């Protein structure tokens, strides 16, 4: 049995015929060759497969392709020209927010959504909000720092010119006190 699915993927209307059991992740990766979205667990825990469905973050490994008929899907590739994502990527680069890169697309998508909903977020709240994206390389410190850095940069961008300059954080600054 094949299901006909019509969805907007990264701004382009796509139609594909899929078996009901095919995941959105596999359609993106194998049919559309959008391989930024990675598979780390295929049971919805690690977050490496995070994409946006109708603008909201979702786990593509447990979204059946058949169930997203009529929806709009955005992957990391689809945000290549997005200015907010560009700022976030620049922060991850500046603050060493990635090592092997496998969890990174999921981290970026989740960060993008987080900073949209909670622009002033910092510290432990970032950790709580990002707890659904697992990383095995960084120990999360560089990722949290990158998101904080991006939050400041985005806030500075949205303020009128001449308003409070953002303090940029040093990559390996030692925290004072316990």
């Amino acid at each position: 049995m094949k299901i006909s699915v019509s969805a907007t993927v990264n701004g382009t209307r796509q139609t594909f015929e899929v078996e009901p059991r095919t995941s959105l992740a596999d359609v993106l990766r194998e049919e559309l060759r959008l391989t930024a979205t990675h598979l780390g667990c295929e049971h919805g825990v690690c977050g490496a497969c995070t994409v946006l469905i109708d603008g909201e973050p979702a786990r593509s490994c447990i979204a059946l392709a058949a169930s997203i008929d009529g929806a709009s899907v955005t992957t990391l590739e689809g945000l290549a020209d997005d200015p907010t994502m560009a700022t976030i990527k620049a922060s991850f680069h500046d603050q060493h927010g990635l090592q092997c890169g496998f969890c990174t697309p999921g981290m970026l998508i989740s960060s993008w959504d987080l900073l949209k909903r909670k622009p002033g977020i910092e510290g432990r709240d970032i950790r709580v909000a990002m707890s659904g994206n697992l990383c095995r390389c960084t120990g999360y410190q560089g990722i949290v720092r990158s998101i904080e850095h991006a939050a400041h940069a985005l806030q500075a961008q949205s303020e009128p010119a001449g308003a409070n300059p953002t303090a940029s954080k040093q990559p390996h600054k030692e925290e004072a006190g316990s």
Partner: protein
Amino acid sequence: MNQSFVSPREVGREQGIGASVKRNEDRRFLDGQGEYLGDLRVPGMAEVAFLRSPLAHARIRSIDVPEAYRGSVFFAKDIAFAKPIVAASTAKGFNASDYPALVSDKVRFVGDLIGICIAPTRAEAEDIAQACVIDFEELPAVWDIDVALDADAPRVHDHWPNNVYFDSKIENGDLDAVRAKAAVTVRKSLRMGRHVGVSMEGRGVLAHYNRRLDELTVYSSTQFPHVIRTIMAQCLGVSEAKLRVIAPDVGGGFGPKNNFHPEELAIAALSMKLNRPLRWIEDRREHLIASPHAREHRYDLTAYADARGKLLGLEARVVVDAGAYSVWPWTAAMEAGMSSGIMTGPYDIPVYHARALTLATNKSPLGPYRGVGRTGACFAIETLVDAVAHAVGREPADVRIENMVPISAMPYRSVTHKLYDSGDYPACARQAIEAIGLADIRARQRKPLPDGRLIGFGMASYTEQSAHGTAEWVARGLPVVFGFEPALARFTPDGKLILFVGIQNHGQGLETTLAQVAHQELGIPVEDVIVRHGDSSVSPYGMGTFASRSMTMAGGAVSVACTQLAEKVTRIGAHLLQAPKDAVTLAGGKAFFGQQSVSFAQIAEAAFLHPERMPEGEDPALEVSAVYQPGRSTGAFSYATHACSLAVDPGTGHVEILDYVVCHDCGTMVNPMIVEAQVVGGVAQGLGTALYEEMPYDDNGQPLASTFLDYMIPGATEVPDVRVLHMETPSPHTRFGIKGMGEGGAIAPPAAIINAINDALRPLGAEVTQTPATPERVLDAILAAAEARA
């Protein structure tokens, strides 16, 4: 509190040794344009699902493949030409066994490979695997160390007299004399739970035949492609000249990707046989159940000390549950050997007797994982030192430091003949203690917390052999010896530099740090340096990335090659500038004579395309090949002290890390930003060992944690902010004094955290002696202590 760096930096070397340069490799990963194994495809490719054993120990009587699927399922007989993997130690008494690509006689662990199912999609291949019916004669499972040791135990390997891979002893010094004069004798029994490596990307293999080059190309998510080529060629019966192994982008390695796996052999062999591209992507359940496991150790320890806590002697018994097969090339015995070999840690302990016993069980084979045997050894000695301190009624931090090898004793030969090259262990420990505020913590502990939680302080120190070369690997008895690293530094005619290296970067930032070494020698901007690695046809033969060796070894080779290249660039530049050679300097991608300069592009153009512009007698082209071995191959010893404060909730058993400090010394740091991140990443994994990660098996040998719901790795809220302090005591034996440091972060946390938990629980008389210290185990310890008091 970052100390100023030791290595001198010249003008024009702002991106060189010691600079926190941002990474060259970030671009493709941030754009999601990396290419991992699962992103690769070849026309005509079939997907593979393995038919794996559902039982821990059984003979295979028969296998029924449904009619429709015959022709899609392959067994050992179909790739009979593939020789089994044999990882035998050269040490006498090691029990060898075959690890075939596919088993045919009996299965020895849940997940053992029986057959290969191929189909156009992975889903269909899994359907085929599910449809096959295997008739097993089930055998009792050797599911535990105690079962394996039992004289009547079933044999994992039928031709062995027992279930012992290897049993070795260390007997250095007169233990009887020590026993007689010790004022204090302290015993401890400890267990470390079985681990899975859990890189975010699992393993994977894609094999296909390249008809133009008449070679088999095998992509594998591996940490050492050249070495895989060597052993794979042997097992396939082909020449290495007809085999290409490529590690694409690799999503984390940590050790489980640092073995020759039967999956690699099976896929390569079948692809050859069928002349068909085949791809296998390890899924998470396979990774948890059947990738090489790690860390399952048991310790029985005795420390003998004087009345001040000075250690006079140490007795240790290490038992490792090494699973069903010996992993190649390390052999099953390496883990216990490493642990017993480094047990004395940073301490000056003159007498040491140890027994290292490695057992076979019906579990996934045990292999190296970040820190390898050192993590268990650190757990053992560091909990023991705390116990000794309490036995003599003194602060453990003080007793620990007093036992350390002082800087005046460096270089120090340990009782296990390891040569500690340089370092100030006591200073490092003192910095960690001061940074975490031990005095304040002790003061806080005297009053109960309003929410009822108990504060604990723990610390752990270690010294880590890194970048060891020939002498050490020979001593370990491996079938291959990792003695050197190569580098080919090659200019392009347009003035860019390509470094072809034999290590395999998978997150460590080597595409940047090796470029920094090139910058240090040549003054070429880091952005103009490309590092090529991971492809056995592209790079000179190298050993890969593991054992905290890459920066030291490959960095050394790049330095040697680029130093020579710099001389040639200077000669050509001087000639083009009509300047005396000694007055020419290299910086910013140019050769300077005063204000005049020529670019590397001009120099390279001359070397390749206009030899008429070259100096008399100078050969054309612009590349240098070099190899590097450290001055001593016995290793450069990095070391650290981890200190942690935490709160234990006696009502729920939950542990919250309040503060975590690492003071470490890896000699000269090439890129402090990258070094710090490696430490933090390692600490996160160590924290997983201490509190979360365990692969339990039931008494049928069934693994019980087959998803991330059961096998928990730390997430962003489980890892605290880690404060990292750097010391730099260069190694006398390596280029720039670099020491390896990739694993260190994962060595000390279990010891530091368990020590802290036990410090918190001491008023209750409770103690945890096992990792992970789950809430239930903490509560059980508290309840047991309460009952004992009653």
